[in-house]
């Protein structure tokens, strides 16, 4: 038989999924809120702010899906 092969696990430990989901979604929500406040108050738009908050929202929603059991 082949030599004992290394078992593959997820790059992020399973037990951290709910905690990571909560933290990243919180950061994403804060950044989304500040984006909309910025939109509503000033007339000039800042592109880099949009990029920052998308990554926060994206990873947060991914960990939310994983912790809910939808293994994408």
């Amino acid at each position, binding site marked *: 038989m*082949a*030599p004992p*092969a*290394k*078992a*593959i*696990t*997820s*790059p*992020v430990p*399973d037990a951290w999924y709910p905690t990571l989901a909560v933290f990243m979604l919180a950061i*994403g929500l804060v950044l*989304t809120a500040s*984006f*909309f406040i910025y*939109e509503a108050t000033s007339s000039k*738009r800042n592109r880099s702010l*949009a*990029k920052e*908050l*998308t*990554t926060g*929202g*994206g*990873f947060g*929603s*991914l960990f939310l*899906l*994983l912790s809910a*059991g*939808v*293994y*994408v």
Partner: protein
Amino acid sequence: MEAPIRAREALGFILFSLLFSICRSSSLNHLLISNAERRIDLSSHIVKVYLTLKVENAGSTPTSEVLLSFPPTQADHLATVEALVTKGKRKKTTLVRLDVKATELPDAPNDAKYFTIYLANPLKSGESTTIEVLYLLTHSQEPFPAEIAQSESQLVYYRDSALILSPYHIKQQTTFIKTPSTKVESFTRVEPSNRAGTEIKYGPYEDHPPYSFSPILIHFENNSPFAVVEELVREVEISHWGNLQVTEQYTLVHAGARHKGVFSRVDYQSRPTLNGASSLRYLLARLPPRVHSVYYRDEIGNISSSHLRTDSRKSELEIEPRYPLFGGWKATFVIGYGLPLQDFLFETSDDRRYLNFTFGCPLLETVVDKLTVKVVLPEGSKDPSAVVPFPVEQHLETKYSYLDVVGRTVVVMEKKNLVPAHNSHFQVYYTFKPIFMLAEPLMLASAFFLFFVACVAYLHIDLSIRK
């Protein structure tokens, strides 16, 4: 009933020995079976036959192939054929499995089918070796009467031969048949034969030429559950985030004597041993340990009559269909469960990943007529290949699941006529670059990004008609 059978079997006997002497195959090396003992176990609807052959090389050349032959009706229902040879002395015997392959021989008398056992060491002239063969037959017990009422017991026919069909001369042979209960309506007498309790003994018979055949018919009671899964589709979805999701769709049928008349629930529940003795009440499925999120549902919805017992080495799911299954009744349901990825997915030294999973139905003591196993590989996997211990039909498909752009490759394997002995492991190899895992969160992030860009654009666009 017995006299015509004896005349018929004598005629068959003469015919076969004549046929053999006319068309003698030169590829048969001069092997001789000095002692053959066959034990047929009829306790469940899967017939288990244990054959112990003491093969002697009476020729001058060493051989490493031993032929086994089966009548064509039995060969169609053969699920597995295994051959073992014991090695070592009294205290330290080990069983070595030998390769068995189906072979075709040009001048087979009466369409007999052959299997060749390849010995590990060639058998020299004058030497003898003991080979143990195990073969399993499905759909070989025919219910007779074909229709029974609820309160009747199920009786079946089993057809076989008192003499072991073999291309070699057999010096001495005995057959023991074990019935599930002591109720045996009739059995063909081929002297010397007798019956003691649940065991019928045919033999010992001395010095029979090759291809001798003596048909026998045993009519006995068999109330063990005749659970047959007509079609099973097993889908194993691999997610590199740490989970293996298995979904199994069953079409279960009771393959025993068909039910006639009414079904009385009162009688069934008040006296279960007299009423519906052969009905299917419970099914036990053996699942791997550390299983989670197990569900059991059908088209109506969830079926709550199930129990899950887990321990560190296995999990047992005991399910009860919505109604007890009588002869000819069907039930369709879906069982699904999740498993941790690290128990089943491994990485080889040359950077290929492989899934090590069981092929076969987790239900105990059931025959599967047609099984389809689909392994859904994550998006971005390349070069899939499957390694299965027995021949299966393979092809590839594509499936679109969560967050998929190009689709996931699915390796589909199909096999017919399986028994629980087929629950061995198979492997599916593929290559995957870990950087592709980042595609999913980036896809979600880009969805949010597009939403914000849309907001910015909306706030920029001036839709007023009048300036």
